[in-house]
């Protein structure tokens, strides 16, 4: 049985969850030294930026941030190729403690692709995973280190995570139908 459809996280809840995760990251890594936050495109990236802001406020040091596009690392072959975004990791990963940031974890395949992508860029000292929402149904032995909220869903349901930076609001909904695309579409992601 899945969760009821509808709002599962509002803006306040999201703010508190991200704040808590920021503190947990600092606690687990004993500060912000040598720390880098890498958001998985697209919605992981703004969350990583918010975490970096919070950490900077607490520690006075801003962790490095980057964004990772994993279109080229997906192990499924959709009928139409997803548009290739830009990976921007403007620092050397080697020896860094990397926190991968994504909005939702589901099967674990995205995370797996992201880990592969990171290793193509360098050899980090450690990789951790932060997600806003864990909706279950893992297909791989992957476990997030930091979770904003656990939500039981059924496989047929959709999670629509909306962020102010992209969608104009902070909220997470469980839907019975796929969400309408929102926010600024990737340029040229046409036909």
């Amino acid at each position, binding site marked *: 049985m899945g969760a009821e459809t509808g709002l599962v996280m509002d803006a306040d809840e999201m703010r508190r969850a991200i704040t808590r995760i920021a503190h947990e990251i600092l606690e687990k890594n004993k500060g912000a030294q040598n720390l880098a936050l890498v958001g998985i495109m697209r919605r992981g990236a703004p969350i990583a930026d918010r975490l970096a802001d919070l950490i900077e406020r607490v520690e006075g040091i801003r962790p490095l941030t980057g964004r990772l*596009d994993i*279109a*080229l*690392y*997906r192990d*499924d*072959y*959709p*009928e*139409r*190729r997803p*548009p*290739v*975004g*830009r*990976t*921007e990791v403007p620092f050397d990963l080697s020896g860094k403690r990397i926190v991968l940031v994504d909005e939702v974890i589901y099967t674990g395949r995205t995370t797996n692709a992201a880990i*592969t*992508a990171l290793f*193509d*860029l360098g050899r980090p000292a450690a990789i951790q995973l932060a997600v806003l929402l864990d909706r279950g149904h893992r297909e791989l032995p992957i476990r997030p280190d930091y979770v904003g909220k656990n939500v039981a869903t059924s496989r047929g349901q959709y999670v629509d995570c909306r962020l102010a930076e992209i969608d104009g609001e902070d909220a997470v909904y469980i839907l019975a139908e796929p969400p309408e695309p929102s926010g*600024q579409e*990737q*340029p*040229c*992601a*046409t*036909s």
Partner: protein
Amino acid sequence: MRDLLSIRETDTDQIHQVLQTAVGFNEILKRPVKKVPTLRGRSVITLFYESSTRTRTSFELAAKYMSADAVNIAVAQSSVSKGESLKDTLKTLEALTADCIVIRHPSSGAAHLAAQFTSVPVINAGDGRHEHPTQALLDALTIWQHKVVGAEDDTYPVALRPDKPFDLAHLTVAIVGDLAHSRVARSNAWCLSRLGATVRWAGPRTLLPAEAHQLPVTVCDDLESALTGADVVMVLRLQTERQESGLLPSLREYSRLWGVTHTSLRWAKPDVLVMHPGPMNRGVEISAEVADGVGGVRSTVEQQVTNGVAVRMACLYLLMGGSGE
């Protein structure tokens, strides 16, 4: 997009999509480990009926950087030289489970013919004097990097104008030389005009195809009118056998009337970009000084090579999208 056979049959959105994707791949080409697993377990066959080290290598590297297996069928070593028809060759390659076929052929339309005989995506790597679509796409990318992004190394996010990121409407591109026999000139005319640029064609009448003015180009009768105010000059290679076949009185006169030199470039904009699809005949269609970038004229040769790989990676990525199941 099922195949990439010509730019004429590729709509503007698809051109944007390839360029957009290629920009993403340019980043990968700057990495120490230039490899992504995207096309692992898939095979790309390059079927070249004409020799071309550069284009073939570019496609092979593009395939390999994406973890595909690239196999080259060199015509001289294959049954093609024994007179096997293109249809039979294609059927054999399909049976060998090729996932994409890249074809270069001296006959115009050979890629279209190949696409009729196979369900596998076909990429035209140059057919006769018809088209060379990936060359035009990489030329467009190079022009965009110089004239829109402004940086020679591409580190610029694509979101310049999110609605029309590769708009070249402010540019005039002059294509000079043997237009009748040039597939590059045709592909570029379609590609650049679809991106909004004004395209001029200039060359001797004997090397101009019939009713060229019916293509999206302005035909110029002398070099000055072609170069005046041009942002980009694309110089075509002159095959020296054109003189032997009676299309030109002499290379000397050709060079005097149509050769791109520092003197003739004074008609163009000061920041003119000079491009050549190579290999160059120095002293014929282009002076040695311009070819070597002497005097501040920007040369794009190396950048074009990198963009060539990126564009071809993008084409392979977009065409080999389906699961094949």
